[in-house]
């Protein structure tokens, strides 16, 4: 394992305590992902995959251990620094799409730019570019309710890419999609990984699909990394 990885964790643990009960979601996970790598993450339900993803994405902070991304120790970041990290360094994609229903596809894609000092014209122009990249330019004025699941997920991908991040974190992006659409989505991610040197970390239950595209695979169980393998 490469300890000078692009994304690296050291003894990363997350313990949730609700009342007297403590749940160890992640237990001393050591991980190193090289730049431009496509990492597939599998594991049974409740094994800690989403917990790991939220920590890497800066949405949550570890109980103990460290996270290094591009040489920065993000586990030490303040909440404002984490917000900027989420804005510029990573793009996150979720199973539930998590796009805003009242916004059009274009507005959803442009949303992250709203928080940085970009003019409206620039925002919309860049968002259109991104939508074109995921093949949805013709649907830019449609709202999520008018789009299929796969199309919504593509909107989410376009949004994740708008700040040109180096890392894409995808938490079961295909979980709500049929196998045909799932494949299309993974192909988009794989394409980005190959052609734009994006580091992709993707969670999926569909091991075959994942194995087909991923450079490396890990399996989580009860908060531990129990298996590591190279993809095809």
């Amino acid at each position, binding site marked *: 394992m490469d300890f000078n990885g692009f994304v690296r964790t050291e003894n990363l643990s997350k313990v949730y305590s609700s009342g007297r009960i403590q749940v160890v979601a992640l237990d001393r996970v050591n991980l190193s992902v090289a730049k431009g790598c496509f990492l597939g993450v599998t594991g049974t339900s409740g094994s800690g995959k989403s917990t790991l993803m939220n920590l890497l994405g800066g*949405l949550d902070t570890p109980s103990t251990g460290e996270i290094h991304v591009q040489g920065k120790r993000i586990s030490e970041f303040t909440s404002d620094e984490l*917000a900027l990290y*989420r*804005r510029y360094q990573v793009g*996150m994609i979720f199973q539930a799409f*998590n796009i805003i229903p009242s916004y059009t596809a274009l507005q959803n894609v442009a949303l992250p730019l709203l*928080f*940085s000092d970009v003019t*409206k014209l620039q925002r919309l122009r860049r968002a259109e570019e991104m939508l074109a990249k995921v093949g949805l330019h013709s649907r830019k004025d449609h709202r999520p309710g008018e789009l299929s699941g796969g199309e919504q997920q593509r909107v989410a991908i376009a949004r994740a890419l708008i700040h040109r991040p180096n890392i894409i974190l995808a938490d079961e992006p295909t979980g709500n999609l049929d196998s045909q659409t799932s494949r299309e989505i993974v192909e988009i991610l794989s394409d980005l990984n190959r052609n734009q040197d994006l580091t992709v970390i993707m969670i999926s239950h569909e091991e075959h699909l994942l194995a087909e595209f991923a450079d490396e695979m890990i399996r989580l169980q009860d908060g531990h990394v129990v298996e590591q393998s190279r993809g095809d």
Partner: protein
Amino acid sequence: MRIADYIEQSFFNLWKKKLRTFLTTFGVVIGIGALVSMISFGKGMQKNVKDQFEKAALFNYVTIISNSEGEHLAHSPRHRRVEPESNRPGRVLDDDFIHEITQLEGVELAFPERRFPANLKLGEKEQFALVQVLPTDVCRSKLMQLVVGKPYMSDNENAVIISDSLLRRLNIKDPKSAIGRKIEVATLILDLKNFLKPGGIISILAGKSLPFSEESYTFTIAGVCERAGFHGPMPLRSDVFIPPGTADQMKKLSSTSIWDFFQSKGETKGYSMLNVRVSSLKYIDSVKAYAEDQGLRTFALVDQLEEMKTAFLVMDMFLLAVGMIAIVVASLGIINTMVMSILERYKEIGIMKAVGATNRDVKKIFFFESGVIGFAGGVFGLILGWIVSILINRVVNHILSKQGAPHVDCFAFPWWLCLGAILFSIVVSLIAGIYPTLRAARVDPIVALRHD
């Protein structure tokens, strides 16, 4: 995030819930409207009173009151202060005294109050009124607020000035039409012949006749003045004014009340009141001191100013309190709406945080929404308050004009009130937005994203 983006975002989000936004804003509109009309009413009344006094230069007057004059004239506590002294027989207010006063530094003129009762006849209508003898100088000064026409120019002119209120009572709607018309002034005189006739006293005591008869004079109406809207020992206290020379030629009762007439027993007691005009406020005190040293009582409107200010302050406070209640209710509406909005947009907040919004960004988004509600509420509240004030003013003046009173503006809208109302509305809305906003900033994105 840019200011324009925040504003656009606010409108976008508020527009999504049109009805709720409208109702919440309407609450603010009513609150601000109530507050604005209340303050405006307070300021309007204040302005009215001060303007009238200042326009007429009334602050430059001191009234000196003879000691034998009725208590009712001196009603302010300030006068009570000098009362123990006033037990000694004060100086008689005669022409000598007037001469002395006129010699004091800063005194421009001094004239006694002289009034007599008369019956006025204009066309078909008759009205009983007190006629005041007013020197030509005073008639031509700022004190006399003419609506139309001009003051009389000499002490012997056969002319009168009449108030608009009396004109209305004489059924004349247009003051202009009264200028140049003849008015008949019938004075009461003591009819001694009738009094001394055998059986005369008996018929008087039996109430069958009075020992008075009328003497009629005809004058031309030279000007129409505004009826002074206040009472007390003021220089102008009548509805009809005539020049002194003309008055001296008339047969009339010299006193205003029949009781005075009987009590005086023919003694010359001088005048009951003397009006003194000074060139500047700084001479008021010395004139007062001079008169009080001679056992006389004085009244100066300027002394009432402080008391008036206190009274107005109390009134303002009361009106403000009423307005504030409306504002507090409106604020609760804003808090309610914002909290609702945050609960509804829980997931949206989580998404915004996930894609890189800082807590500050989230706070600002909601602050701007409250601010927009406040701004809209302020602007429309101001308009509402203004409309309400116009309506109330109409109603009040309709009632007043029926009673023959002059037109008044009950409301004032100084620029600071307009600007202040909008700013205040925004500030109140922002304060109401603090709690909801903090709640929005505290949203945990992980929890929110899992939320349906």
